[in-house]
């Protein structure tokens, strides 16, 4: 069963081509890391997965169904920042997803239903190592703790797909190593597809089962917008070596430099 099927997909804004001729098949329970230079359509791809953007041409199927036109509970998201609710405590932040699902009219649970939901919440908080901080507000937490919270919030919904948009980019290197262990653990236990966008090619290699590189194939100074990015490498992980890492670093840097040169001109 394929979880995701993309065929001949194009995304254009006016005459600016962002993505061209994208093809991708994803099976169940994959952990895909997405790397690439800035402006190579990684974020556009993620926004399409969320349902915030529509493809211009081509097919984009999730579980054989066309992509829904708006974000929904089957696709969780963790952004780099701002994806927890500042007015709710840690516990209420995680509880919210269950309340919205079980009480569609008022978005709040009471009595035994609430107690049952809170048991699940506390279990999740233990799993992400945040139980001790359960009564705190997000503003009282460090950046790493806020990202843990945001992950817990999404994972408790058991999404089919979890999208991570540079979730650890703002964290200290030591912290992101802890977060890698956490996310791998959650991925194995909850059986979901993960798409993680990252700037850090090394991180892309360390995590996951498959690495996608988004890059522009043609760099044309005369018409920089005429050619979009596509998937230039699709690598199953576990077999790759240092030579490949160097090659990928070089090709994305080349595009990065091209984009910088254009911006400077």
């Amino acid at each position, binding site marked *: 069963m394929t979880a995701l099927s993309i065929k001949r997909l194009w995304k254009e804004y006016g005459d600016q081509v962002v993505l061209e001729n994208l093809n991708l098949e994803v099976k169940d329970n994959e952990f895909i890391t997405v790397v690439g230079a800035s402006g190579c359509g990684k974020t556009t791809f993620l926004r399409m997965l969320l349902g915030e953007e529509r493809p211009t041409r081509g097919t984009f199927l999730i579980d054989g169904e066309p992509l829904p036109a708006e*974000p929904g509970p089957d696709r969780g998201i963790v*952004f780099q920042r701002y994806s927890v*609710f500042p007015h709710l405590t840690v516990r209420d932040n995680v509880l919210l997803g269950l309340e919205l699902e079980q009480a569609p*009219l008022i*978005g709040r649970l009471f009595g035994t239903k609430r107690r049952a939901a809170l048991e699940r919440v506390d279990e999740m908080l233990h799993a992400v190592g945040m139980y001790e901080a359960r009564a*705190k507000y997000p503003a*009282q937490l460090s950046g790493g703790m806020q990202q843990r919270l945001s992950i817990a919030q999404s994972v408790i919904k058991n999404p089919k797909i979890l999208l991570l948009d540079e979730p650890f980019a703002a964290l200290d290197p030591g912290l992101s190593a802890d977060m890698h262990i956490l996310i791998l653990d959650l991925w194995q236990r909850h059986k979901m597809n993960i798409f993680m966008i990252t700037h850090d090619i090394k991180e892309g290699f360390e995590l996951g089962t498959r690495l996608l590189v988004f890059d522009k194939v043609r760099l044309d100074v005369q018409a920089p917008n005429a050619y979009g990015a596509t998937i230039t490498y699709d690598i199953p992980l576990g077999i790759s070596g240092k030579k490949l890492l160097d090659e990928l670093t070089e090709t994305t840097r080349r595009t990065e430099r091209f984009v910088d040169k254009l911006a400077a001109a």
Partner: protein
Amino acid sequence: MPRLINLRPGRAGALLLGALPFLATVIVYLVASHARLADNPNDKLLPAFGSFAQSIHEFAAEPDQRTGQVLLWLDTQASLTRLGLGLAFSAGLGLIFGIITGVLPYLRAGLAPFIATLSLIPPLAMLPVLFIVFGMGELSKVVLIVIGVSPFLMRDLALRVGEIPGEQIIKAQTLGASSWTLILRVVLPQLLPRLLDALRLSLGAAWLFLIAAEAIAAEAGLGYRIFLLRRYLAMDVILPYVAWITLLAFALDWSFRLANRWLFPWYQGGKNA
């Protein structure tokens, strides 16, 4: 010698500096009042503090001979009731229209230009219309406050909705929120402390509209009283009334600030949680 921008007063120094303008005002008043009263003991413009005490006692402690009521409390109650009703209705309207125009693009497209236009009508220019339509009673005074304050609240709160990061709105949708539960659980609770802030800012305008409406037609009220006594040049009552209104305004502002800190600890960065 360090730069002036780097010289800071201590705690006691700051308190003393803050008290200085108040002291200076009292001293200037006392000197001027003394000089005028020495010229003409019947002068009404700058009464001595003794006459203030006497009229405060008369208005705040003794029942009025004609009505049998203590006028200061009667006036305070009438004014605060109008102000409270006006602010409460404005807050309700501000929240409802602020949220729907902030969250729902179709309603924003339909209502935002109209609200922006409404907010440009000078409310005092509408006062005669209100008196004609709603009569000279309580309703027109409350409505004046509402039309004066609520368009500002609506626009301000719609802007505050826009300040909620888009990431949060998307996250809520991936957690299963509908438009309605998104408003109920994500937008509304985050707007309440901002509503209190906006109400604090509109307190000055609310008092202005209240006193203006009372000055023209009322049977009781702080604004009514000072405009009534103006005919008799009764500065010995008017000035204490103005001081009392200032004190009430200050107390309201302060209680709003306190309420915000107590009710919404997360709004201050969760410091009080």
